[in-house]
């Protein structure tokens, strides 16, 4: 067994032990399992949010995009900042409502606000459908990381099964507490590794940042700026805006909101989260450093750039440390995703179909569903497919469709009716599915637009259709009862 492999497996074991130990001293009812008893302070909420945001996507996708595409990768740096600005006002409002009504999940919020368990079911379905590709993304990344860092000794398939098993166990045992505890380990390690690599590699190979970028600019003119067409400024702006709005629509991100002890937590985090974004810069620097050192990685292989250059540069034990950090970036978000998807299925779908269920059986069923969701994700992962970023973008487009109905619900007088919310979400999600499956572009759907607008993110179409459906149906159905925010008592068990 190589040094790298020992370090990776030791880290997995530590994560497993931490994840299981997180349960200590608590009775794992639904309240503890899903929202940590609503007792998390600034640091835990920060780590949970960071745990979801800095995933294998940051680690492999951030460096992979910088390597493969250059300047378009910078959009990743842009959208987070805008999301944090919004979060300062959005999250306290979300928290106040969900805390007052003891909600567990994002679909609970929609169901309650719109007084419709049916809408809760729809939101839960959208959430699960978006979460599975996100889980696949984590597992794919984990497979790449372990097989590369073990120098091929462990196949990515084996790694994926082991990783999925570890997460499944500690999620069943400890729920969100397990995610919070393991994210402490993860954030320390990833921060240290990525910052080190991002500084060391450019200095080692080029003598500094500017010489590195000058060399890249000379070798690949135009690579370091946005192109006039294609992934242009218009693409950049529309993508940053869409992903910025969708940021907190991720079901597990909103789940982290529910764990907070007070609303001040979010306002404080809105100050510090942007600083933490700078870690992305270092991931980019690794990708850029790899361009001229390990050239020729195409398509999906671009996601390997970080490891290829590390393998070329460092001793096996350090590859193990990098691999361990990478594994944790898959396990922590993976645990949040599994827990959230299982809670949605149990609390917001099965419970609606069988209204008599007690809180206890809902909690039990949620935990029983964790291995099921894990298994489905593993099977999807092993069938393989698109590169990491593309998968993420599709899930993102799905959850972003929840934004208009949510903002409406948070307004003092909600202009959106329940049928309006249904129509908007359904139309938006259907549009995303059609556009993704047909690989449509703005140019192919709306050929009459001026040519520069062809570069708009195609998700804009889905969002506009969503808004039209929401406004029209709300206007037509206005005057029907069930005005959102009305304090209906229909939702079972609350």
């Amino acid at each position, binding site marked *: 067994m190589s040094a790298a492999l020992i370090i990776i497996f030791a880290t997995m074991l530590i994560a497993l032990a931490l994840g299981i130990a997180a349960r200590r001293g608590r009775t794992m009812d639904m309240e503890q399992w899903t929202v940590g008893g609503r007792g*998390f*302070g*600034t*640091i*835990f909420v920060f780590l949970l949010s960071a745990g979801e945001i800095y995933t294998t996507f940051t680690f492999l996708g951030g460096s992979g995009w910088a390597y493969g595409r250059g*300047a378009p990768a*910078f959009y990743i*740096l*842009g959208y*987070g*900042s*805008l999301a*944090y*600005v919004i979060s*300062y006002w959005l999250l*306290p409002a979300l928290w106040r409502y969900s805390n007052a009504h003891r909600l567990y999940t994002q679909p609970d919020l929609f169901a309650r606000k719109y007084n419709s368990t049916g809408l809760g079911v729809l939101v839960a379905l959208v959430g699960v459908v978006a979460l599975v590709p996100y889980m696949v993304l984590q597992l794919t990344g984990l497979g790449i990381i372990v097989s590369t860092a073990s120098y091929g000794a462990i196949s990515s398939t084996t790694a994926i099964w082991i990783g999925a098993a570890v997460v499944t166990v500690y999620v069943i045992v400890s729920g969100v507490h397990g995610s919070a505890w393991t994210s402490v380990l993860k954030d320390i390690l990833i921060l240290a590794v990525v910052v080190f690599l991002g500084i060391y590699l450019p200095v080692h190979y080029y003598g*500094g*940042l*500017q010489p590195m*970028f000058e060399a890249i*600019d000379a070798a690949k003119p135009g690579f*370091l*700026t*946005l192109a006039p067409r294609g992934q242009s*400024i218009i693409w*950049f*702006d529309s993508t*940053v*805006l869409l992903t910025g709005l969708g940021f907190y629509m991720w079901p597990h991100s909103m789940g982290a909101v529910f764990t907070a*002890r*007070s*609303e*001040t*937590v979010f*306002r*404080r985090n*809105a*100050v*510090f989260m*942007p*600083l933490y*974004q*700078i870690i992305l*810069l270092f991931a*980019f620097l690794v990708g850029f450093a790899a361009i001229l050192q390990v050239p020729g990685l195409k398509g999906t292989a671009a996601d390997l750039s970080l490891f290829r250059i590390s393998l070329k540069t460092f001793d096996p034990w350090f590859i193990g440390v990098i691999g361990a950090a990478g594994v944790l970036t898959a396990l922590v978000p993976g645990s949040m995703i599994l827990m959230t998807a299982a809670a949605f299925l149990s609390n917001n779908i099965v419970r609606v179909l069988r209204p008599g269920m007690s809180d206890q059986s809902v909690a039990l069923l949620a935990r029983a569903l964790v291995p099921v969701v894990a298994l489905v994700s593993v099977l999807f992962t092993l069938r393989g497919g698109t590169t990491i970023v593309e998968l993420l973008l599709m899930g993102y487009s799905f959850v972003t469709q929840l934004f208009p109905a949510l903002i409406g619900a948070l307004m003092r007088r909600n202009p959106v009716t329940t049928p309006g919310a249904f129509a908007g979400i359904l139309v938006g999600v259907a549009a995303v599915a059609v556009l993704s499956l047909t690989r449509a572009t703005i140019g192919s759907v709306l050929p009459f637009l001026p040519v520069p607008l062809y570069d708009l993110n195609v998700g804009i179409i889905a969002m506009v259709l969503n808004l039209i459906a929401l406004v029209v149906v709300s206007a037509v159905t206005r005057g029907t009862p069930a005005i959102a925010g009305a304090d209906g008592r229909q939702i079972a068990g609350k």
Partner: protein
Amino acid sequence: MRAINWLGVLPFIGILVGIIYANRVTPYLFGLPFILGWLVLCVLGTAVIMGIIYLADPANRSDAEDRR
């Protein structure tokens, strides 16, 4: 909305509008191509702006209980 909260618009302008002017390699900022250096400045600026908004917000003075 309190006037100081409008500072929150600046990151949007800096990133979405600023990118039009910042889309260039030179001059280098902190050794980074100008476009990347500009975005890093925007990120740091966002933290500063949110810090100002936080300190000016009376809602944050009422409950200082939460630390962990």
